[in-house]
């Protein structure tokens, strides 16, 4: 069961992202739970599985709502890879769970914003401010999710395994 737990958590977050959260929350600070899950799974399970889960989550979203197809998949794969790399390479560093989601969330926002601008959107200061707040909230939310998933998944390489 624990083997499939990351996949189940990922599917739940994808469903949350596409159906529940947009229906309940009307806010410019709407967070991407799939991205948070991918980042946390990358931190816990390494870059290979982080990328894998990023690809699964991104493809599921792209198939149903993605336009253009594949943009979110690429972003989530990159997020999973970066988080997984940081989670293994800098596992004992205190700031790893902060820097990895920061890079992933900021990168996602930048790419999305640039694509929106290129496709004709008018991005002003308020949009940039909202994006920064979303990045900060994502980094904050990753921390409890990281602890929770660590308890649930119990990865072989845990940050707290030696304690």
């Amino acid at each position, binding site marked *: 069961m624990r083997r499939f737990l990351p996949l189940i958590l990922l599917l739940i977050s994808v469903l949350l992202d596409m159906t529940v959260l947009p229906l309940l929350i009307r806010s410019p600070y709407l967070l991407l739970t799939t991205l948070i899950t991918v980042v946390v799974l990358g931190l816990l399970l390494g870059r290979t599985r982080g990328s894998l889960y990023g690809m699964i989550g991104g493809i599921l979203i792209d198939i149903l*709502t993605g*336009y253009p197809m594949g943009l979110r998949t690429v972003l989530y794969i990159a997020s999973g890879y970066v988080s997984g790399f940081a989670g293994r390479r800098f596992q004992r560093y205190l700031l790893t769970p902060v820097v990895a989601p920061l890079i992933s969330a900021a990168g996602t926002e930048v790419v999305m914003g640039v694509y929106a601008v290129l496709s004709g959107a008018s991005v002003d200061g308020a949009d940039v401010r909202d994006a920064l707040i979303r990045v900060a909230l994502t980094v904050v939310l990753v921390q409890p999710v990281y602890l929770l998933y660590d308890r649930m998944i119990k990865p072989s390489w845990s940050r707290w395994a030696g304690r």
Partner: protein
Amino acid sequence: MAKTVKPRMGQKKKKGGRWGRVVFGVLVLLAVLALLFFLVMREPGRVSIAENAVGTVFSPVVGAVDSAAIYIRDVVQGAKDYFKMGRDLEDAKRQISDLKLQLVTLQQDSMENDRLKSLLNAKESAAGQDPVYARVIARDPGVWFNTFVINVGTTSGVQQNMAVETGDGLVGRVYEVGANYAKVLCLIDSRSAVACLIERTRDEGVMRGKTEAYSDTPECNMYYIPKVSDVAPGDVVLTSGTDTLFPKGLKVGTVTQVSRDQDSSERYIVVMPSVDFQHIEEVLVLRSVVETVPENLPVLATPSPRPTPLPTPSASPTVNPNASATLQPDDALWAWPSSMPGETAGPTAPAASLKPTPSPGSTAGTLPEDAWAN
């Protein structure tokens, strides 16, 4: 030592002696006689002294007992009422909860009813567009883009680029279709563009979306409006149909601001869409193929010589000093050609004064074209 003897079973116990019973009987008799005496001898409407004395003594006692009885009755009744009220309160709370639940359900039903009613109206008004009902099942995560997924696809006859609307107006278009789902690109998405016209002035332009879907005013900009247009806030914006994507006449929104910048690249109109994009639950997909109105087709080069319009006749035609010849009102060039020899001009002919006047040498059956040739 005296020894008490208990009476046997069935033997009555002696209470005093015979003299005692006689005295008791006499006293009762005297009391009855006294009572009869007082009753017979008392004057009607007045109470006697004894009566008064007894009444005066006993009436406060009776009043007190009565008050006590009332008090006890009230206390008992209060206690009963208290417990009953407690039960009633519980019942009332339960009923309130039930009613609240029913109210919420009814409100939801009412709102759904309103939505479906407006959707039904839209369906009836768009009956020629072969609409199909669809439910929104998923939305694009995040805030950058505005797309959503509906639960109908190619199995329901939905194809790419079909228009999607609600009872309030145009929502967007289908940009990808699966077997049982389709992705819809909203009007307010920055990648969306719709050919629109202002209902009042008939000025055409292109409306593009912006990214601020979660702002309070998810407005769009409409470009390429003529500089001389007198568009004003409040004007209704409709689809023009010239983009061959959306049927003509679908309501898009209302003009909220008009830019008066002289630079044509910066001049635009701000349009508030009529659809609430944050609360879309049901939509209609218009499955008909858009037929472009012939008058809106682009003007192509005509292979045959195009007829040149006749100059507007006036009572005193302007004389061009550079012209080699001066046109007279009764000149044959001003004539309207008739289709048949000898036939006068038709109903679309110019004024009677401009009818061809046969020249002195011509015959009655000569066509005006012959006169031109001459």
